[in-house]
């Protein structure tokens, strides 16, 4: 009996090139499993962004476009609107970092949620700009030491981080907004469930769906993969609570 197989939506023979212990690989695998389960592979356009997330297109076996840094929600908006104009039923989602989604691209992100664009967004929150070497980003936590906050983030000098899932939940066009994590089996299962629910919102045409995933960046955090997960469990998930902040499918 086969207990595990590589998802159909993952390219054959692909090996993840992320740093060891990085949660990007796991997150992409979960996305691939959900694409399989919902039979979306053949009708999907994935929008990768700038950041470690960009390598999505080396692993996912679906049509992919890379967007300029921060513009994934706009690129996805254009694609989804175009498919609709062509009377084509296609599935469009973005896979973005926290810096991409919530800093340089915050305008595109919030406005696509406000417009209720029928797209789904997966945001990998690793509390820094991972690809460029771990600088302070919009989600870096108070006190967090990064290469550009060497003395730790503080409110006077740097200001405060953003809670993306809560902000997105405030937008009227948002159908679903949740935050989850990958530090243990229970949370991994929950994350997959939230991704699936978000994707189903789009399939049903209910508008913008958003999943923020608290993810590890052991390299830039200068921690072992195990300690990185502990940090998410004990510190980061206390600041960024795991939960569902909006779900229109529960209304009425």
């Amino acid at each position, binding site marked *: 009996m086969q207990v595990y197989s590589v998802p159909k939506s993952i*390219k054959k023979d692909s090996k993840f090139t992320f740093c060891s212990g990085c949660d990007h690989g796991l997150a992409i695998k979960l996305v691939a499993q959900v694409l399989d389960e919902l039979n979306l*592979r*053949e*009708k*999907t*356009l994935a*929008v*990768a962004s*700038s950041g470690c997330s*960009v390598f999505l*297109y080396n692993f*996912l*076996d*679906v*049509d*992919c*476009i*890379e*967007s*300029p840094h921060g*513009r994934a929600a*706009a*690129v*996805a*908006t*254009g*694609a*989804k*609107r*175009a*498919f*609709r*104009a*062509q009377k*084509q039923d*296609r599935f469009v989602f973005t896979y973005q970092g926290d810096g991409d989604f919530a800093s340089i691209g915050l*305008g*595109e992100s919030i*406005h696509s949620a406000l*417009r209720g664009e029928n797209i789904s967004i997966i945001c990998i929150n690793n509390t820094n700009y991972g690809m460029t070497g771990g600088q302070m980003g919009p989600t870096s936590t108070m006190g967090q030491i990064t290469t550009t906050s060497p003395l730790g983030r503080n409110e006077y000098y740097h200001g405060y981080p953003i809670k993306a899932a809560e902000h997105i939940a405030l937008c009227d066009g948002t159908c679903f907004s949740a935050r989850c994590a990958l530090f243990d089996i229970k949370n991994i299962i929950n994350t997959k469930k939230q991704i699936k629910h978000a994707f189903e919102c789009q399939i049903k045409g209910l508008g913008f769906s958003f999943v923020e995933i608290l993810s590890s960046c052991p390299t830039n955090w200068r921690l072992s993969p195990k300690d990185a997960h502990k940090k998410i469990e004990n510190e980061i998930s206390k600041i960024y609570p795991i939960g569902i902040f909006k779900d229109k499918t529960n209304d009425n």
Partner: protein
Amino acid sequence: MSEKQLLKGNIAIAKAALEAGCKCYFGYPITPQSEIGEFLSLEMQKLDLGYVCAESEIGAINMALGATATGTKALVSSSSCAISLMQEALSYAASDELPIVLVNVMRAGPGQGYIYPSQGDYNQATVGGGNGDYHTIVLSPSSVEECALMTYRAFYLSQKYKNPVILLVDGFLGQMAEGVELVKNPYPEIDNSSWILSGANNRDSRKIHSLEPNQDKLNNHIRNLSAKYKEIEKNEVDYEKYLCDDAEIIITAFGSLARAAKEVCNHYRKKGVRIGLFRPKTLWPFPYQELGELSKKIKIFVDIEMNLGQMLKDVKLALSSGAKVSFIGKPVGDWLKLEEMIQGIENIIKENQVASL
């Protein structure tokens, strides 16, 4: 679409875009081009097409990246300072080989400048305001009718070469109403099935990307783009010659200003001075060769622009040795008046002791 209508350049562009099969429009308001988006907002909604009042010009042009990647024709329009905001995505579109059609109805700059007519974006459009080795095709209409014809051509060339195309319109032309007969789109559809992203159904998955960590691959990609640009330079140069054959002086001008320049030619012809006009219709690729050819026998050139001489450097590059070029221009404001041009040319005639007046 065949009887004569009184149309502004902006509306002619919008109507021609629909006729050319454009199914998406993304834009953000800025004078003097807002009529394009205003007109299409109703028409596209009626047809259930893709119209988005974008949050910014950055949003708009990136939406066009997404839309064109699916094989859907998309239009973005804006003006000068706001076109500056789009340069990053234009560079991506060139690298990704995505057929975005972008209309720039120019206003005066730099910075916000003002909504006065100007041709100050020649450099940005033809040299490219984004990073890297790339080119956008740049078309320059000089009448409302040409606004429509070149919109058709912009969609066609963008699809043919998988390259962004800029329709560079001066604010005067965008706002000017003329009686025109809108003809049907004369260009064939280009098969895009080999590259568009429509879902990996019965074929391998595809990716469109500009990031390329492999040095050799990146080199090859840029060289391939460059080879494509050479093809475009070979095939698509377009220009108009007016009374050039027997001319002793040639005016170079583009856009609606070139029409006024024709009046200057007519004025002098009546006086027995043989002046002609050379008007590039493609600003990139620029008709270097054709202008160079003319300059083998005609030696006096006058470049007239509503800027401080941006096309002038291309004219100089084109001219063969012995030919010289003077410049008449101003950066902004009321269009150069006939009398101003005539006065300027009068001086040049005197300096060069051409024919007696």
